[in-house]
């Protein structure tokens, strides 16, 4: 389309054609473009001839790999329960308060196994050192007298150690009421005797 034709169908375009596009460029831009392109080519050539290769998509995935690694490093391996650090102060103070209270020795804790061991030992000794015929009925008073006369010199710990295997198989939970036993021990046995 020649200019006269343009004038005919597009007079405004024909009028402003000489004005050009209106674009400009930085000063001396075209003086330096060859050097810029040569530098770019040189850099590209260097990277292509180093002989080193990288796995496919390595650079594309590098950011994700590094970020993932950083995230792992920042997350401790050991996890703590949810809200643990919110309540740790209270828990520590509760522990401290418990430690300040005087210790109470529970008789139930110590005397139940001792009493059980004593009872079991007694039964066993009776069967071992029985001076009477096994076919005869033994009166309780005779047994008490026999013990009082010092025929048994083993203490309860020695007995328990000696018959440890047998004692382990003895269940006292269903045969001895622990409350009754504790009452009995509290009422009938003085505390001093525990330590003598």
């Amino acid at each position, binding site marked *: 389309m020649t200019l006269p034709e343009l004038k005919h*169908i*597009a007079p405004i*375009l024909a009028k402003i054609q000489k004005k050009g596009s209106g674009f400009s460029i930085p000063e001396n831009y075209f003086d330096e473009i060859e050097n810029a392109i040569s530098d770019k080519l040189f850099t590209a050539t260097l990277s292509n001839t180093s002989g080193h290769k990288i796995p496919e998509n390595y650079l594309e995935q590098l950011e994700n790999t590094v970020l993932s690694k950083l995230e792992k490093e920042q997350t401790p391996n050991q996890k703590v329960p949810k809200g643990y650090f919110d309540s740790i102060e209270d828990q520590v103070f509760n522990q401290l308060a418990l430690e300040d209270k005087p210790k109470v020795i529970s008789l139930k804790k110590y005397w139940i196994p001792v009493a059980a061991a004593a009872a079991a030992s007694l039964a066993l000794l009776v069967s071992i050192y029985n001076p009477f015929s096994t076919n005869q009925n033994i009166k309780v008073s005779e047994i008490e007298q026999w013990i009082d006369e010092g025929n048994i010199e083993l203490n309860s710990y020695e007995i328990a150690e000696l018959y440890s295997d047998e004692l382990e198989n003895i269940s006292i939970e269903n045969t001895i009421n622990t409350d009754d036993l504790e009452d009995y021990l509290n009422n009938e046995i003085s505390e001093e005797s525990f330590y003598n």
Partner: protein
Amino acid sequence: MDDKLLVAQLQDKRTVDQAFRSLMTEYKERLYWHIRKIVLNHDDADDVLQNTFIKVYHNIQNFKGDSKLFSWMYRIATNESITFIKKRAKSQQIESEELQQQLVNNLEADVYFDGDEIQLKLQHAIAQLPQKQRIVFNMRYFDNMKYDAISEILETSVGGLKANYHHAVKKIEKILTQN
């Protein structure tokens, strides 16, 4: 310098660097303005121009001389410009047409756009054309290129180009008249 001689020197490893510098000196301005009118922004045009020359350097061994060296380089520049627009639009998750509008809207604040009001209006009108019409219009209207040359570059028939240009002129004139 004769195209055949220049191509021979470009394809010879002993003379390629010197010949390539001559090639850039010869075509840098024409290619720059061709690219600039597609991407509109100077920095983007600079990037595309450099990429175009680098592509020419790497592919010169494959140049068979079926078309003129000038046409071959223009084709590369055109493709690089279109690819640039598409990539930029994709990175912004918008269509190329929307990006074209953004680019032309940026012209008002562009220190490297000295156009007056009517020239700015003209750029807004050009941005509303389909891509091929836009490229044909720029080559014919601003660069006064002959249809034969445009035909060789864009690998389109002269008749098709004339139709494209005619439609573009009519549409732009209508837009300018309305405003």
